[in-house]
């Protein structure tokens, strides 16, 4: 898994590639926490190249959404890969997260 983060004035865009599973979810969570601790309350997660998402990764997404909502921020998902969509649908969480077909529309939603 690789994560690159680009910070803007009002939000951060995090691009994740590879697998988000039990072996990588701690690293995924740390990367998100680092962005939040840096002062960003709005995150766009670009998931176009995520080829595997398991419950470990979903747990991080659910917890992050909850924490950001509490502090007046939000997380949005952009360019969901088919695999990500499939995991979200199986878990019944496909309607929980705001998602956009591309990064630009996700960024523009803020």
């Amino acid at each position: 898994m690789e994560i690159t983060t680009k910070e803007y004035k009002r939000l951060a865009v995090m691009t994740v590639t590879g697998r988000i599973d039990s072996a990588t979810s701690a690293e995924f969570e740390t990367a998100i926490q680092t962005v939040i601790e840096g002062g960003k309350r709005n995150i766009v997660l670009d998931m176009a190249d995520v080829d595997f998402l398991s419950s470990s990764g979903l747990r991080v997404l659910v917890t992050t959404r909850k924490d950001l909502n509490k502090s007046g921020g939000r997380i949005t998902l952009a360019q969901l890969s088919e695999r990500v969509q499939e995991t979200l649908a199986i878990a019944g969480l496909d309607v929980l997260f705001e998602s956009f077909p591309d990064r630009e529309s996700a960024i523009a939603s803020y």
Partner: protein
Amino acid sequence: MVTLRVGQLRAMTSRHLTVPGNLEEIETICNLVFEAAREAGLDERSNYAIQLAVAEACENIIKHGYGGEGRGAIDVQTQADREGLTVWLSDTAAPFDPTRHPVNKPSPRDDPPAGGLGLLILRRSVDKLRYSRRRGKNTLRLWKHRKADST
């Protein structure tokens, strides 16, 4: 006269792998399941679903069964046949039946619980699931059927 249709007889192919119970090995197991699922003629969506189920089951074995990484092995066997793919996962951890453990269904309208998603995903990703325990070994059997129009 017997007419043989091409593809009617599908050879049964099987694979077998034993890995240490470490989380990074789950990807290795998924790669094996991916190849086995292709041999079984599962479509892409079904292929991913069985990989997901196996990953969730293995994470449970490592974290909850063995109580952590490096404490035991996971044995994986697959069999592809005309109906689809069967996967057996075996371990020597403490007894745990994922087919009977209660699961909280997440509710998108409320704040869903972050826990319990693994078992939910495991059960929803396969067509059939069976647990057995014999001589100190747990075995979980997972089935994923081919769709009727899969080639």
